[in-house]
């Protein structure tokens, strides 16, 4: 590509990106303004918690278990060289609660639930269901988008907590049951070293933020999808890719803010 074409092309992309970001921000505010129904008719949100949360349970629980098991194997390997293999419980718990729980479950949530939400809303648009709703004097942002967003926001911290819990169980199975680390030390060190405010609350805040980001990206991409088969498929891909990048980026920012120097 000649240089003369390159700069306008870059300019157009940046321009489009900023325009889209502004559009997404306006969409977000409109949705917040229309969120009343998600709480006044909470059954709508509960249904979405079921679809995004309960149906993601298997992938979350199984992944959590394996991540915890791997953590225990790797952690034990390193810790025993320094004669501190009793600290395995702390290592597993802190890694999960602070980082891996929110981040990995966020990534899984984006690919399992986020993509499904985008595809569903995109297909509703492509088959004119959203238009039909508008013509029935029902606002689709209130009726379709808001419950899905809030369902995701509520489901995500619960999934992250379950991920961490099963991860710790996996760590216990490998560390204590299989390798033979002292059970008392495993749990008591974990209890004394994991701080509720510093570690657990911060982990929950992270998962809440990731839940909100993924849910927003998912509903926005679905609502904004080009109403064709190709458009919906592109939107679904974009949800997973953008969500993953945004989770990792936001994780860095949040970690830098939360755990500076501690």
């Amino acid at each position, binding site marked *: 590509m000649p240089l003369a074409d390159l700069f306008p092309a870059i300019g157009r992309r940046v321009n489009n990106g900023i325009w889209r970001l502004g559009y997404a921000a306006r969409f977000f505010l409109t949705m917040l303004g229309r969120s009343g129904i998600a709480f006044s008719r909470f059954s709508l949100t509960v249904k979405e918690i079921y679809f995004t949360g309960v149906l993601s349970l298997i992938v979350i629980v199984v992944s959590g278990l394996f991540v915890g098991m791997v953590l225990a194997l790797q952690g034990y390997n390193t810790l025993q060289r320094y004669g501190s293999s009793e600290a395995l419980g702390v290592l597993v718990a802190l890694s999960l609660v602070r980082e891996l729980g929110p981040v990995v479950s966020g990534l899984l949530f984006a690919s399992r639930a986020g993509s499904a939400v985008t595809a569903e809303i995109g297909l509703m648009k492509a088959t004119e269901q959203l*238009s039909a709703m508008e013509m029935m*004097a029902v606002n689709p942002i209130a009726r379709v988008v808001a419950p899905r967003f809030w369902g995701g926001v509520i489901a995500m911290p619960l999934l992250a907590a379950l991920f961490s819990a099963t991860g710790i169980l996996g760590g216990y199975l490998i560390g204590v049951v299989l390798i033979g680390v002292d059970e008392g030390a495993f749990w008591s060190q974990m209890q004394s070293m994991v701080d509720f405010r510093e570690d657990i609350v911060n982990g929950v805040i992270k998962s809440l933020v990731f839940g909100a980001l993924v849910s927003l990206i998912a509903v926005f991409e679905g609502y904004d999808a080009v109403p064709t088969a190709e458009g919906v498929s592109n939107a679904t891909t974009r949800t997973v890719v953008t969500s993953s990048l945004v989770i990792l980026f936001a994780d860095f920012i949040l970690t830098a803010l939360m755990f500076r120097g501690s």
Partner: protein
Amino acid sequence: MPPEDFVSITGLSFAYPGGRQILDRLEMRIAPGQVVAIMGGSGHGKTTILRLIGGQLRPQRGAVRVAGQVVHELNTRQLYLLRRKMGMLFQFGALFTDLSVFENVAFPMREHTALPEALIRDLVLMKLHAVGLRGAAQLMPNELSGGMARRVALARTIALDPQLIMYDEPFTGLDPISLSVIGQLIRRLNDALGASSIIVTHDVISSLKIVDYVYFVSEGKIAAQGTPKEILDSDIPFVRQFVKAEPDGPVPFHYPARDYREELLGPHAAR
């Protein structure tokens, strides 16, 4: 004095942003109780007219009045109130795929009324009975044939007894039996509800049997109008081509293109 028109369209112009002119100073009136067909080739702005009447698009010039109100001047709340008097049947039904047939028809009632469940049940069954599908109440949309889905969507459209029913290509993709069933339903429901109906279609045969008046739209303008009989007898070339389904005529077979000879043999041609 004749009764006031339920829908009146005056000087209506519309173009999509950066696109060509879709509608150009369109004039149209629909009286209460009338069933009106809007006909014309694909891509001539027929569906756009429905979206302008429903307030989903804003005109650049002119106005649509429904029940005396100028649609594009209403705020969101007023527009939603007006839409409760309208029903629209989308081309492929646009049924909510996650809800059963029963729940689809109950949807507008649940959203807009606080009727007790027992009454909603009876009303839904009555609406479904009117389209002959009371027995299909518990099916899901993916278990319906195209014609059945259209009828369920019709039951949902009339759920709140609208005063104006709009149909976007109601005859597309139906077998001959479903075709005449839908045609009869459109007429019967209109008369039973005392409503007005607008049918956007390119199916001349099916629609001329049931409508009171026809508008032909071409290039964003009214090319012809009249009662079904006047349309059948018309000697306007465009109408004749349409009614007789001739492939070429005022509506050309070819999309506008460069000269054929020049394109094949000109300087850019393959050697």
